[in-house]
């Protein structure tokens, strides 16, 4: 499984007032099993980009290939693409509509024409992947759940289609710290157990650093930078110019290095930072 985006350009309302060039010549690739993080200032085109990956938006120009197949020439069946590439929108809990959690999660698989007999298993599996118990909440109304639970139900609704690529648009937006951590560990679990490509947008640099294999930085409809988190976050000045930050751990370590020059570290996560401190202070371990 791979995704290839070639020279993608998208213009909202062409020739109308409010014409916006939301994507401008964007190209990148995502390889099998990779986790790709996307960051960028508000309005830089991240959500627009995601909607091209499962054919919800047709590009003004350029192409998208999923698994080598072009999905932008109008020849593929959209249902097949939507099954392969699962897209979870920002605030997905606002799309719940069924009477029960189980029925809502079953909506996707049913649309793709899965046999009824297999649906229940799918729903069970999807709910357990997001850390919810079918027997406990399957029959309750999705509107009775907490915010974090609702979001996980909505994500399960996409996972139940067994996508080969999972795309999440700001999956942790507006959640409290506990629900935030749960969603992060859920993403890890999904990645480990399904081994699928995960693409996610986040404004939380800490999440991006700890989850992604590779990061794309969007700025004004273009890709401004891309690379491993280590590479991207070493350009702190350029990021700041785009209204972006480095992960909190990185900025703390830079401040510490300014005070205690013997502790030099370009750690992005707490584990890496701890490792560097340990190495810098002789006899720390004992």
């Amino acid at each position: 499984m791979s995704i290839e985006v070639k020279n993608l350009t998208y213009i909202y309302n062409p020739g109308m007032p409010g014409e916006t060039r939301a994507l401008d010549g964007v190209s990148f690739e995502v390889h099998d099993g990779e986790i790709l993080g996307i960051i960028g200032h508000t309005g830089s085109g991240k959500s627009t980009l995601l909607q091209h990956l499962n054919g919800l938006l047709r590009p003004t120009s350029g192409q998208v290939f999923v698994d080598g197949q072009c999905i932008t020439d109008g020849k593929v069946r959209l249902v097949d693409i939507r099954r392969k590439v699962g897209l979870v929108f920002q605030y997905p809990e606002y799309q719940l509509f069924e009477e029960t959690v189980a029925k809502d999660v079953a909506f996707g698989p049913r649309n793709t024409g899965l046999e009824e007999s297999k649906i229940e298993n799918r729903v069970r599996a999807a709910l357990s992947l997001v850390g919810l118990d079918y027997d406990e909440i399957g029959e309750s109304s999705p509107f009775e759940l907490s915010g974090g639970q609702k979001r996980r139900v909505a994500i399960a609704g996409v996972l139940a289609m067994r996508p080969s690529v999972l795309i999440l648009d700001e999956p942790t937006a507006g959640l409290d710290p506990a629900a935030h951590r749960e969603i992060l560990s859920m993403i890890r679990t999904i990645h480990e157990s399904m081994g699928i490509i995960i693409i996610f947008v986040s404004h939380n640099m800490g999440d991006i650093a700890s989850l992604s294999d590779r990061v794309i930085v969007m700025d004004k409809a273009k890709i401004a930078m891309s690379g491993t988190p280590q590479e991207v976050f070493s350009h702190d000045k350029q990021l700041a110019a785009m209204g972006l930050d480095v992960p909190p751990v990185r900025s703390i370590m830079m401040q510490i290095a300014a005070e205690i020059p013997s502790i030099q570290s370009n750690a992005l996560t707490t584990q890496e930072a701890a490792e560097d401190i340990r190495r810098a202070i002789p006899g720390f371990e004992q």
Partner: protein
Amino acid sequence: MIRDITLGQYYPGDSPVHRLDARTKIIGTLLYIIELFIVNNYWGFVIAAAALFAVIALSRVPVKFIFRGLSAVFIIIAFTFLLNLFMVDGRVLWHWKFLTITYEGLSRACFMAIRLVLLIIGSSMMTLTTKPIELTDGLEKLLKPFGLIGLPTHEIALMMTIALRFIPTLMEETDKIIKAQEARGADFESGNLLQRAKSLIPILIPLFISSFRIAQDLALAMEARCYHGGSGRTRMNEIHFGKGDVVAAILMVIFLAVIIASRFIPDLF
């Protein structure tokens, strides 16, 4: 597609039409609608259409923008056209099985369709060139006399503003929900009528819930800013009649006279 509906939307600009007092435009639009019903032959429509195009040209709103916004409404017009076409008795023009088109039906259908098109474009010109807030201010002022007999004029005006203000928001919300359900493989375009109606449920329920949420947030925000109804409120921008409004008023009177006169000239066809 749903985003394209620009009904009730404002097109920012600084044309003579934009600068008119909202009250002038409201009265002008009402008058125009009444005049469309005074018209009894095609000459009247020619004149009314010419006047409308003059206003459009003066307002500098792109014609493309106006028509794109109305494409959904034209489905309704086409429907009325067909209904009239087949339902009116008279001299038979064309006949096939149970379908009959009469001369009277055809002329009635065309007449009604033209009237509806002019009516819709005419009234959308008002909303296109007037900020919603000015529109409601104007409406509130115009309704003021009715306040004496107990009509809650401020509340009516406020309801109108909120409705107009939230059309684009709800469109956006609908667009998002449609996309989200499409991402789960929902299909709104195929199937028979019943299946299509059923496929709307995944859109309508989240939309209702969103509307309630939006309404509640709005009510809270208004209360937090000490909103307490209309009495004693003052305005930052008072609206007032200017020279342009006098010109517009004179033009309206002349136009009314022309329309009435057009009833007495022999019809075009």
